[in-house]
């Protein structure tokens, strides 16, 4: 065996002689590697997006909403007839043992007025438990308390967007605003949360005690009923048992017996998020698998060109053998050539892929979240090397098996 450096030089030279051909041969690998890099970057981005969503929503969550109801044989859709009450929420809080927080919620939209300014926004009625679940805090003033909920106090917590539109530079704390003509005292301003992952402005909101909302704000069509009840358990493992506990409790409270259909639905939000995460992972794996088919096709292209090259250079192979090259030397030479082609393709592919990912990130990241990590690059580089060795082996073997006399006679 000649020394590896010299063999490497010979290979580079052979590739350089046919620049155009080598470039076209590597193109398959370039495209394959670039596609794998972009697909994995999108996959990574999607994973991040979902996990961000999960952490902003809070963990270990169950969401209870009204189910369908039947009256006189006509079935209404989910939530058409609110069936959950504030008392349901209190009952869950009292008797479900796996539950740490219970936050009943009502929602409406309302016109908020301060002085001569007004602003239409989303009004949420809830309890301090929601602040705990969502880890919300105030940047000014204070959150309302359980005591204020019990007393149906007319206090409101404003989001940053509402403050900016109603008060401008003025200090809102302690001021009185009117929501649908009902006066509320501003108790605090929520810390800005920015856009949600769905593009919604999370600061464009007003939070009031759920009791106050039910008693004073019209728009909740059915007095005493709530839109949903958010339940947090201590651990993820508690979720199934909590679900069971709550179902039994609510069936009992709503007088649902035997085979009668539940008039409520318990959604395991954490589980939903996890399955969304799994689905996105499966999807990005699938995309990467499709992309790697291109890598395979690129490898076949390398094999094709190497076979052509072996035929073209039969005489050269004969000369090398006559002056002392062993089969192993010839094999190594062509293998190194194939490897150099595929690795060059791999490096260019990584650059192209990262470039494409950066372009997507800059221009359409709202649509396709992108996160570029080192690990897919290493994988792609190693894989392109393996493709080179795998598809370069047969042509190299063929070259090394030539008979020197025939090879020398080859015109």
């Amino acid at each position, binding site marked *: *065996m*000649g*020394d590896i*450096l*010299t*063999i490497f030089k010979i290979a580079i*030279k052979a590739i350089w*002689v046919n620049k155009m051909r080598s470039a076209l041969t590597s193109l398959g690998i370039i495209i394959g590697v670039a596609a794998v890099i972009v697909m994995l970057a999108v996959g990574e981005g999607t994973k991040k997006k979902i996990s961000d969503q999960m952490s902003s929503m809070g963990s270990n969550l169950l969401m209870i909403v009204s189910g369908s109801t039947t009256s006189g044989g006509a079935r209404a859709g989910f939530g058409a007839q609110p069936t959950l009450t504030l008392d349901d929420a209190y009952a869950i809080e009292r008797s479900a043992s796996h539950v740490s927080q219970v936050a009943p919620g009502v929602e409406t939209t309302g016109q908020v007025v301060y002085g001569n300014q007004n602003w239409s926004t989303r009004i949420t009625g809830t309890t301090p438990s929601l602040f705990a679940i969502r880890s919300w805090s105030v940047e000014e003033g204070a959150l309302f308390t359980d005591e204020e909920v019990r007393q149906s106090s007319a206090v409101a917590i404003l989001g940053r967007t509402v403050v900016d539109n109603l008060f401008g530079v003025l200090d809102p704390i302690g001021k009185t605003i009117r929501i649908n003509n009902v006066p509320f005292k501003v108790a605090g301003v929520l810390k800005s949360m920015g856009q949600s992952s769905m593009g919604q402005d999370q600061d464009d909101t007003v939070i009031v005690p759920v009791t106050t909302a039910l008693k004073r704000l019209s728009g909740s069509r059915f007095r005493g009923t709530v839109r949903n009840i958010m339940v947090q358990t201590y651990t993820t493992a508690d979720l199934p048992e909590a679900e069971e506990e709550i179902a039994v409790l609510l069936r009992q409270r709503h007088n649902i017996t035997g085979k009668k259909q539940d008039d409520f639905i318990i959604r395991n939000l954490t589980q939903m998020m996890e399955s969304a995460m799994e689905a996105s992972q499966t999807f990005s794996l699938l995309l990467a698998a499709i992309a790697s088919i291109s890598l395979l096709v690129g490898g076949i292209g390398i094999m094709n060109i190497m076979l052509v090259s072996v035929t073209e250079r039969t*005489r*050269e192979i*004969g*000369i*090398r*053998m*006559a*002056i*002392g*090259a*062993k*089969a*192993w*030397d010839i094999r190594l030479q062509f293998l190194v050539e194939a490897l150099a082609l595929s690795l060059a393709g791999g490096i260019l592919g990584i650059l192209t892929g990262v470039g494409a990912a950066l372009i997507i990130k800059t221009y359409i990241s709202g649509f396709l979240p992108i996160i570029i990590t080192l690990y897919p690059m290493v994988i792609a580089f190693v894989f392109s090397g393996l493709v080179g060795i795998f598809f370069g082996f047969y042509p190299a073997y063929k070259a090394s098996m030539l008979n*020197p*006399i025939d090879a*020398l006679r080859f015109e």
Partner: protein
Amino acid sequence: MALITVENIYKVYNMGDMPLEVLKNVSLEIASGEFVAIMGPSGSGKSTFMNILGCLDKPTRGRYILDGLDITGSSLTELADIRSRKIGFVFQGFNLLSRTSALENVELPMVYSHVPNNERKQKAVKALEAVGLGERIDHMPNQLSGGQQQRVAIARAIVNDAPIIFADEPTGNLDTKTSIEVMTTFYKLNRDAGKTIILVTHEQDIANYAKRIIRFKDGEVVCDEINNKRTEAE
């Protein structure tokens, strides 16, 4: 002891049903320092014989002892190793690698016989100087005349200090003047460096540079004699 000993060599090709005997029972010895011309018409088996002596081919039957070593049963890898250490080839078509400088062409055998990098260049330059091409080491083959290309090939054949040089019709592509140049180079390598030279040719003028002429016909040695009318080159 002879450098080359072949005993009862046969080379048989199976062409269809009829076996074709290219070499029939050839036995001879060549001593170290000889200058032998192998002559014969096309199809006489002289090239096949040279390929066997040069370890590029194996005989179907018979024994071949090279430098005291019986290589009849050697593997292809072992033969390649013997070629790189003991044998230099010069071909009719020069067989230099194109787009590769004279120096790199001459360095090539040393790549395959593990001569260290720094030593390679030194020896290659020396070999090129020995054939009178010291000024043209960086020329590509297509920048050299036929005679010069053949001398690069000779430099390549001697660079590994191989004791034996095989030349297959080395002047076949050259005009008379450059043929004389090339043959003079062989003559001097034999006389001054003591190389054993085995030359295959069908031209009597070229064969006359040799000390001994072996004639083949139909796969057999028909004449093996000392050359009395030897051309003395100077």
